[in-house]
């Protein structure tokens, strides 16, 4: 299962690309040299002189051609990428080697996002260079920051071993407050989580679920620029005294966007990453990885490239990567956000089984708390925001054009259909993609709306007016990527609806929204339809869809 550095001859043929490329390169090199010789050294006259010239050029360039082909063959026979992911925890230039591994893993994702952005630009008829470079870069930087946090959380840069002390109470908080600057804080107070228990953390977006989990890994206080007051102990260790890497052997975190936190190219390397950072031998970790893969039921995925995983598979791989160190504290940040019913059930089953077998202590932050409620011994609800409550006072809007929900499980082809439809009818149909950020290329909401007015040829202020109708409290000077998930969807809707399409398609607009934000989305869809735009939205959230006349058929729910 473990990839070898020197590839076995059986797979040489399937890795022949470097050799092929080197042959092409070699031929081009000789041709160029001949061209120089002919153009700048005088045209040979007659057949014999041509043959002599060609022969001379071939002889003179033989050495370098040999070098080219030799290195092409070398690149075919040796798995450099596989070799790089070994021994990252020690030895010289380990930071740069880690950066190289991260880079190779990020490459397919960046390429995908570049393709997506190109597609989104075409759809909107936006030809500016900025609209290509800015979203790709912004997306990649977000990914970079997430991957950086993931590296540290998984033991990168560990300088000393932490002796894991008492663990009858993995989490003890005494009069703890957490916050960022002066603008935001969360009072946790006193909390004692006993060994082997499972705590469910709920609360609306922005109430601090993620901050609470990140404070337990040390990221919030130590590397992310937040602050902590009071005493917070994890596994008996004062959290402020130990950076995330030093507790990587017993605190594991499954991040909210699991794909952004992936740091390796292949599933095996991803799961083995923390163990390698801990300095385990390759033999030992191969055993640990295969046993955890079996436990989670992803043995068939071990050789797969990370970027080919579906949402459900990605979550299971992240879970395996978190469990492989046999943590005593497992933190899960909205593990079910991207999953349909089948995958949700699978993740909950794995968590239940792991807990029964290893007695791990778990903290789960989740909007869909009904799915994990059985698992939980303790339910911590973070208080809801007053501002959100004020906005939610429902205005009654009567829909004019139709709103049609499209409900199907992960991988049913909703996205493909929507894209094909929107691409084929660009003047009548507009699409808000699953990642609305694909459409953002400016540094503020106002600038984004003005840019959109130019694209659609509308009078200045049209888009901004629409955006303010859809979300009255939008901070117009904020960076579009600093908006909340719900606000981003609303801004993307405003951008696309300003082109006055007959039909607006929305791909998974409910993703990552809490109940309040869902409520606002409901209202917004009705407002858009009242303007005469028909809407089709794809979702796997049957509850949200039922508000628009969706009733699950028996076949689907069975």
């Amino acid at each position, binding site marked *: 299962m473990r990839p070898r550095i020197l590839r076995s001859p059986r797979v040489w043929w399937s890795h022949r690309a*470097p050799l092929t*490329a080197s042959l092409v390169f070699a031929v081009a090199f000789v041709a160029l040299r001949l061209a120089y010789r002919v153009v700048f050294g005088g045209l040979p006259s007659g057949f014999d002189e041509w043959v002599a010239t060609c022969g001379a050029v071939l002889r003179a360039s033989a050495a370098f051609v040999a070098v080219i082909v030799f290195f092409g063959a070398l690149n075919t026979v040796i798995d*450099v990428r596989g070799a790089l992911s070994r021994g990252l925890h020690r030895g010289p230039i380990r930071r740069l080697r880690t950066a190289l591994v*991260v*880079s190779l893993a990020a490459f397919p994702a960046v390429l995908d996002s570049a393709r997506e952005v190109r597609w989104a630009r075409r759809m909107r008829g936006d030809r500016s*260079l900025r609209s290509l470079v800015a979203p790709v870069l912004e997306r990649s930087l977000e990914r970079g*920051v997430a991957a950086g946090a993931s590296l540290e959380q998984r033991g990168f840069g560990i300088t000393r071993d932490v002796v894991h002390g008492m663990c009858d109470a993995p989490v003890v908080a005494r009069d703890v407050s957490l916050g960022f600057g002066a603008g935001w804080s969360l009072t946790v107070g006193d909390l004692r989580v006993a060994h082997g228990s499972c705590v469910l953390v709920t609360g609306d977006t922005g109430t601090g679920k993620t901050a609470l989990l990140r404070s337990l890994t040390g990221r919030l206080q130590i590397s992310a620029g937040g602050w902590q007051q009071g005493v917070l102990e994890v596994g008996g260790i004062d959290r402020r005294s130990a950076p995330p*890497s030093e507790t990587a052997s017993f605190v594991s975190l499954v991040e909210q966007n699991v794909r952004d936190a992936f740091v390796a190219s292949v599933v095996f390397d991803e799961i083995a990453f923390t163990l390698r950072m801990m300095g385990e031998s390759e033999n030992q970790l191969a055993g640990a990885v295969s046993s955890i893969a079996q436990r989670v039921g992803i043995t068939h995925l071990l050789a797969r490239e990370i970027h080919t995983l579906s949402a459900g598979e990605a979550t299971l791989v992240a879970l395996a990567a978190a469990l492989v160190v046999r943590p005593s504290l497992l933190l899960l940040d909205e593990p079910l956000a991207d999953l349909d019913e089948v995958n949700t059930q699978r993740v909950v089953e794995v968590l239940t089984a792991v807990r029964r077998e290893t007695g791990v202590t778990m903290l789960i932050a989740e909007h869909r708390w009904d799915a994990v409620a059985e698992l939980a011994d303790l339910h911590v609800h973070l208080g809801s*925001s007053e501002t959100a409550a004020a906005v939610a006072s429902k205005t009654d809007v009567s829909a004019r054009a139709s709103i049609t929900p499209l409900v199907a499980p992960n991988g049913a082809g909703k996205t493909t259909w929507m894209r094909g439809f929107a691409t084929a009818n660009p003047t009548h149909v507009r699409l808000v993609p699953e990642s609305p950020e694909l459409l953002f290329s400016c540094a503020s909401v106002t600038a984004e709306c003005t840019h959109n007015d130019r694209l659609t040829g509308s009078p200045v202020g049209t888009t901004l007016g629409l955006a303010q109708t859809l979300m009255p409290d939008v901070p117009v000077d904020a960076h579009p990527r600093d908006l909340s998930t719900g606000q981003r969807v609303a801004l993307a809707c405003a951008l696309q609806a300003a082109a006055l399409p007959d039909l607006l398609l929305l791909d998974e607009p409910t993703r990552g929204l809490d109940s309040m934000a869902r409520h606002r989305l409901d209202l917004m869809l009705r407002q858009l339809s009242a303007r005469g735009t028909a809407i089709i939205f794809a979702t796997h959230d049957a509850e949200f869809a039922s508000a628009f006349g969706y009733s699950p058929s028996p076949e689907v729910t069975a």
Partner: protein
Amino acid sequence: MTRGWQITVLALVSVSALGAFAWPLVADVESAQALAPVTAMTMLPVLLLVAALALDRSIANGTTVALLGVLAAVATVLRALGTGFGGFELVFTVVILSASVLGARFGFLLGLMTMVVSSLLWGGIGPWTAFQAFALAWVGAGAGLVGRWSNTMAPLTRRRWIRLAVLATYGVLSSFAFGALMNLWFWPIAVGSGTDISYVAGDPIAENLRRFVGYSLVTSTLTWDTVRAATTVVGIALAGDVVLRALTRAVTPRSTLPRGDGTQTRRSTVLDEVAVPPIARRPRVRA
């Protein structure tokens, strides 16, 4: 290794590497036939390794590692997507803009990393990789210095467009310098002997230099390099502002919360609770 040491080592390595680039002008008659190019090609990877060893410790944390990784991936993707000539144009834009925000040493490493990553992905690792890596690393390091210089000249470069103009000027200069450097070491290998633009081992430097300028002008300066310089300027002018903001935003710690929500201080509703474990305690497996 302290910052001072890192910079000293980097300077020494760069001077030696420049010597390797300029082997056609430095080598004597006999060694120019075979020994000099082989020496240059083996020396440069070693020098690259020394530079990497010296700078490895300048990487402070996981975020810097990851930023280096993803920015190199972005540059590689843009190199692959570059539909125009040469494919280098947007790479320069990304490397120059990133280095101007994140500093000279980061810029050096970004240039190096970009070349290594793209060679790895296209399977094109070979003696030429070290030359490409050094040349782009110098472009990055220079952009870092230019960025710092325009910070120190703050009253003069207060306005964003002035900073961008400075970077665009640097972009033009570095595009041509990059092209010339890459031509220099490969010139004798690419052209062979017996033409008007050939390298002649043992000729006076001035004569060889004259022919080199001729070779450079006809093969790249007026074509690839000019296109690269023009697109770098266009890239920095059109995307520079947004890119610089994005980079500054990425390296500033922020909460996950949207801005503008005001002060919100709340208490969690469950206090002083002790969760009860559902099963018996298990001895820890890993100490």
